[in-house]
């Protein structure tokens, strides 16, 4: 059998929503379920948009996503989406509002540029988790790859397991909570925001420094972990920007050297 499926979902400009979902009324409004095994990326996204925007469905379940890329992207409405299985790269990007639960794992760049809402991933996540995140919560119960929250500008990234290198690279605002260990270059060139680590830190990146936790940090950590039922580690360490790179010019060669 030949594989004609294009995992990117391109080259289908005239695709239409396949209208395969079964829709029923539930306690909080309409509830829909559909199987994605035989659908292309574009068909899955069109079906999802049809259900959320045209039908006003409050809860959608997608079965057998099969690690396809770019699923559930660009949803700008309050709704609940459950994905039973794993996603490929660029899943749940550019969303504003939905609560998404993924029972499997996700590839690189999940929830990229998310504005608000919640994305909960039960297993592992690839690199660039929550890249350029603007708001909302991205929760990974397993491990994440490298460069989580690169260029993050708001919101919270919560990781139950370990994180790779350059976690919080160029973090500008928002918070990251890593219950396990983190790789080298933590918080490299971060501008602001905070990173909380429960396990071992391999090394700190340029201009990232350790800070004392205060009562508001403890309250924040207990509240966020409580919401998602993630077990807290024995102790926390907090990392913030050292602010050495906020201003420098030719008269400050030492600071320049730090970044170059």
């Amino acid at each position: 059998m030949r594989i004609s499926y294009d995992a990117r979902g391109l080259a289908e400009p005239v695709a239409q929503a396949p209208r395969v979902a079964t829709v029923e009324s539930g306690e909080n409004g309409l509830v829909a379920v559909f199987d994605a095994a035989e659908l292309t990326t574009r068909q899955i996204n069109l079906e999802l948009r049809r259900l959320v925007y045209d039908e006003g469905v409050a809860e959608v379940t997608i079965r057998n996503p099969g690690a396809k890329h770019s699923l559930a992207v660009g949803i700008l409405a309050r709704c609940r989406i459950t994905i039973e299985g794993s996603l490929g790269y660029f899943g749940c990007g550019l969303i504003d509002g939905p609560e998404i639960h993924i029972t499997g794992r996700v590839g690189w760049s999940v929830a990229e540029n998310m504005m608000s809402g919640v994305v909960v991933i039960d297993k592992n996540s690839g690199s660039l988790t929550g890249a350029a995140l603007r708001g909302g919560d991205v929760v990974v119960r397993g491990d994440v790859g490298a460069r989580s929250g690169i260029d993050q500008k708001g919101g919270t990234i919560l990781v139950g397991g370990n994180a790779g290198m350059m976690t919080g690279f160029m973090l500008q605002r928002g918070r990251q909570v890593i219950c396990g260990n983190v790789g080298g270059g933590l918080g490299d060139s971060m501008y602001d925001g905070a990173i909380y680590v429960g396990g071992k830190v391999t090394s700190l990146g340029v201009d990232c420094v350790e800070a004392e936790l205060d009562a508001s940090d403890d309250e924040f950590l207990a509240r966020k972990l409580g919401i998602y039922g993630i077990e807290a580690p024995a102790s926390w360490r907090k990392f913030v920007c050292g602010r050495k790179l906020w201003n420098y010019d030719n008269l400050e060669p030492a600071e320049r050297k730090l970044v170059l």
Partner: protein
Amino acid sequence: MCGIAGIIHRDGPGDIGAEMTRMLQSMKHRGPDSSGFALYGPPSDLLVMRIKLADPNEARGFGWSERLERHRNEVEHRLAKIGAMVDVMHGDQEYAYRVTFRYSGELKPLADYMEDVPGCEVLSLGHSLEIVKDLNDAESVAEQYRLSGFTGTHAIGHVRMATESDVDISGAHPYWAYPFSDIAVVHNGQLTNYHMWRRRLERLGHRFQSECDSEIIAVYLAQKMDDGLSLETAMKQSLDELDGVFTYLVVTEDSLGVAKDEMAAKPLVLYESPELVALASEEVAIRAVIGHEIDTYDPYEREVLVWQR
């Protein structure tokens, strides 16, 4: 971008030809220029050699077929002359041949002698390894070279989006570690100290057929193993000695290994079970050969992993 894939069966031979085709075809979007396979069939006393005599996209002037026929006969003649007893010589294309033969001498003089035939390039040579690569997508290549019935223990493959060198068979992966038998590499990334390593290896007497940076990884690792290092140690040294971004897969007669650079800049998804290990640039490729629901993870930066068949 490029896509790489590998599979190793731990419980005896499997349908690696068909499996690798499915894995590569599902990643066609990562590299539509060419597709390549390095397949390990049952080891034999005979040596198996894959050669190409021309590129499919080169200009076919007057007498193209006759010239290829002449060069094919010259290869057979030279094999006999150097002391090899040819078993079967079979052409899947008029420019690509598979030869099995009995030979007990050094491989380098034999391979050099073959490549002296105009247009001839030895794609692979060993007791088990066979490299098949050509332009076009994986299913087309598998069909042209009839790979669907190929059984064996492990394989790697590559779909190529050419960035650093030409679109031709010489620039396609996998690369055999000329002249070391049964070692091959596929690579996703770019090496920035390619020329330095190429000069170093050339000073040791190695030849390079392509301008592709990935070719040096195969020879680099094989040379280290020839110097007495284990595959795993050689791969660990490569993390410090090769510059640039890379995720590469290497196969030897009984092992499959993967290494990632210190920035974890290129993706790799890994699935491990007691029966087999499958790894690829994208999870869709692994799911193309495994029917049930699976859990996968991404190796971290500077990780070196090796599995035995």
